[in-house]
């Protein structure tokens, strides 16, 4: 029960309370760029969920086995090379370069696979894949996972990393679809000339971010509800 409730907390936290786009303001480029029509925005959101899951799986693997302090693979290499076993081996400086490298090449790989074997899927969101490979929302999810792997006392498992990624992806989908709906309505409005286009889009994004601040504090309530459920 303890694990389940913590997973639910991670999910809600990533999707609503600390929404990637509207709380941390990462992933703004597709959020503003591809939010003119609801259907393309929805496709972009699905593509982000897809990529973020792949990317966080890989980044959890790489962080757990290579990048965190005293990760097994570098320690093993160090000891085979005859180094002092007492030395702390920490490769977390490499995190950014390895995440970008791994995400970009794995997304390339997935794109080639989808193009060959799932042409219909490629038609619907294959074109978005190269555009979001090194999107900051995805890199942000990886860095969030790394943050939770650096402290040896509370190591995240792969399931927790995946739940965070899923929550973040769904949060992005919610935000960009809402934004596209609002912007479609905005086309019919009499917007002052000086605010047309990007100006009004940024104002809308800011108001949406304020609206999402309403979720702050929800985590404590959900936690209490879950613990009450668990104790019963």
């Amino acid at each position, binding site marked *: 029960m303890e694990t389940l409730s913590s997973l639910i907390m991670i999910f809600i936290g990533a999707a609503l309370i600390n929404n990637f786009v509207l709380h941390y303001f990462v992933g703004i480029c597709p959020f503003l*760029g*591809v939010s003119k029509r609801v259907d*393309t925005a929805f496709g972009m959101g699905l593509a982000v969920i897809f990529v973020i899951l792949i990317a966080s799986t890989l980044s959890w693997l790489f962080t757990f086995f*290579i990048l965190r302090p005293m990760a097994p*693979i*570098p320690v093993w*290499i*160090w000891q085979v090379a005859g*180094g002092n076993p007492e*030395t*702390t*081996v*920490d*490769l977390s*400086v*490499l995190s950014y*370069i*390895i995440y970008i*490298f*791994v995400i970009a*090449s794995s997304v*390339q*790989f997935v794109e*080639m*696979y989808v*193009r*060959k*074997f799932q042409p219909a899927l490629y038609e619907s969101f294959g*074109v*978005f894949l*190269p*555009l979001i490979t090194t999107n900051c929302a995805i890199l942000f999810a990886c860095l969030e996972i790394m943050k939770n792997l650096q402290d040896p006392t509370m190591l995240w498992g792969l399931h927790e990393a995946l739940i965070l990624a899923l929550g973040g992806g769904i949060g992005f989908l919610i935000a960009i679809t809402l934004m596209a709906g609002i912007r479609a309505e905005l086309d019919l409005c*009499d917007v*002052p*000339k000086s605010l047309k286009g990007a100006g009004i889009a940024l104002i809308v994004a800011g108001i949406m971010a304020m609206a999402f601040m309403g979720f702050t504090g929800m985590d404590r309530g959900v936690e209490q509800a879950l613990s009450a459920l668990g104790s019963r």
Partner: protein
Amino acid sequence: MLTFVTVILAAAVLVLLAIAMGWVLGWANRAFYVYVDPKILEIQDALPGANCGGCGYVGCNSYADALGTGADEDLTLCGPGGTSCVGAIAEILGIEVTEVWPYKAVVHCAAKLDERLLKMEYQGEPTCAAANLVAGFQGCIYGCMGLSDCVRVCDYDAIHIVDGVAVVDYEKCTGCKLCAAACPRNIITMVPFKRSEMFVVACSNDDFGKEVQSVCTVGCTGCMSCSRVSDMMVMDGNRPAINYDLYEDFTDFEPILEKCKRSSLIFVGIPTEGQVAAVADEEVPERIEADFQTTVDDTEWRG
């Protein structure tokens, strides 16, 4: 010692990773090979690759796809690529590009406020669309009303009401056609600017003789004199139109101009350097620029 450990291990890890990923991607490239028309690949190389989306496609590659498969036949959508890019794509596709003249707006009315007769006092909504519904706003039912519908739609500040008639600023006009669509009397048309200054018919009145004289002191009476001296002038109802296919840089406009007693034929556009030099000695009235800090602009706030 610590940094030394990190450096050696980092180098080792990165080299191993690069080799592994390179191998996997290289294998995937062959294993998942999909045949793509080589033309599309060439077009992809010719496009800037900025993925700006200005063409209306998601990125450069999807525009290249649309061009290569023939789904889109407009080569000129790429803004950042410019003319050289259009040329390169045309060469790949085997299409010849003809020289394209910029189309710019021309107002086919030049009657100033005091040259238009039979004006009435109008107190309705100050838009041309509304005034056009009212009979007797002014004598001429064809000409410019000067109530700024075209000025309001212009995104480039390129058309203004001067002396009660719309005048295009050709330094700013981009030929977007918005003013032509906004004019309820359809007196703004798009003209191919074969040189910086163009010869145009500045009247839209379709009536004849006395009827025109009674409503306007400069309007075209349909005397047909100009069409007798030049093939370029074609009568369209009771007023001439210019056949711009016959319009050449060296056309001599003097005989045509001399025939027109009503000054309905004028030059519009940006004068050439030679013309500016020819009138340099004459006294030019001082031109007062609008001061944007003190002038109330005509942006309209509604609702």
